């Protein structure tokens, strides 16, 4: 039925490519992501760190951050853990 050998080759090639794509998708669906030594490390290195969140980028953002020493004000210790009247308390968490 096919007009010629070239046409059969073309159809075979197209079907072969489609089959290869299906195989790739099957392989990808079954593929297990490589286990990371420390998945949490990524968070610490910028994925989810405050800097990373703010920049909207995920890797190596910490390098872009500079910490102006003169701008630093120590956190007031009195506010920490002061359950009565302090600025910080986890009392509202209790269910």
């Amino acid at each position, binding site marked *: *039925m096919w*007009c010629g050998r*070239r*046409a059969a080759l*073309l159809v075979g*090639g*197209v079907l072969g*490519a*489609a089959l*290869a*794509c299906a195989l*790739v*998708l099957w392989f*990808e669906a079954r593929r297990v*992501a*490589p*286990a*990371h*030594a*420390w*998945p*949490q*490390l*990524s*968070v*610490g*290195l910028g*994925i*989810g*760190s*405050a*800097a*990373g*969140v703010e920049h*909207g*980028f*995920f*890797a*190596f953002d*910490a*390098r872009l*951050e500079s*910490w*102006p020493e003169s*701008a*630093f*004000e*120590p*956190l007031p*210790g009195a506010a*920490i*853990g002061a359950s009565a009247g302090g600025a*910080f*308390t*986890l*009392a*509202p*968490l*209790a*269910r």
Partner: protein
Amino acid sequence: MIARTKALAALAADNVAAHALGYCAACAPLFFTLVLWVAGAAIAEGLRREGLQAAERGPDILLSARALGRHVPIDSELALRLRALDGVERVERRVLGTAQAGPTQLLVAGVESTRLHTAIELEAGSMPKSAGECIIGAELARELGLKAGSRLALEAALTRVYTVSGVLRATDALAGAKALIVEVEEAQALFADARVSELCVWTRPGYSAAVAAASLRALPTGVAVTRDETRAAVSAAANLRSGALSALLAPVLALATACFCALSWFANARRGTEIALYKLAGFTGGDLLILSMIENTFVALALGSSAFLCAWIWVRLFGAPLLAPYLIPDLGLFPEQVIPSAFAPLPLGLALALAFTTTIAGSILATWRLSLARPLKAFA
């Protein structure tokens, strides 16, 4: 009807096969654009998945401080106070900073010693056993030519010499690819600063991380980021990355479409003769349009699927050379690190759809106009 369509499909296959080189030339710009787009979309999706995985296994809350609109170090003692509070299961300190190793600036990550001494699978070497030892990312090891046992002088507030005890695997988290990891105390000594960059807080079961974060935000200069916010930020970053790539490639795609139309035009005279012959053989205008559509379907299937396969080979087998540094800052042109990527059915479907619409747009109008012309005109 089915027999007619089969005959038209056979004829279309023969036509495409007969002019395969011409189709290859016309489709080449589109092919390269699609390969770039599919590869970029796969890397953006891989980064999203890796980011979400990290957020899932990371802390419930990340606490940092801010002054003058910028992030500043936080008091290390705060970790002790937080640990004593109800609702807090665990608090880990982290130091993130940059140091010089000769001309190379690298990222120094200080993590809790318990985390650093937990045995993990490394590419080479072992976990640090003393304060003067560190582990490094695979990309950093390649750049600086380091291996387990090498010595490295780091310059920050002080100059300290470390021994590389181990190298992370190339398949490990991308964020650690160019990092040097030491204990928190060691990083503090290196930077001559007793503070930390941030605190990672895990809340006890039964306590809401969102409520805890709201409480922590009441601290002066306190910035608390919950896991949900991290997930949202990771997704937003991935969308931004793939969106930027798509926006960049959109004009290239338009140019490729125009290129396909222009190159198709050169075959117009030959096509006119073919169509005239078909009409003399009794083909209707509808038959000719169906024939053209089937031809374009063959071309689009070959184009879209081969672009997808090439993108997969480029990213998975060769590690996305040349493209990776565009999407991930600081990576070299030929990165050692395995680039996270995920090939989903959607990019394949979109590649096929783009290939089909482009090829059909480039040929259907010409076919229709030629099908209206008198057959004898083509032989004049």
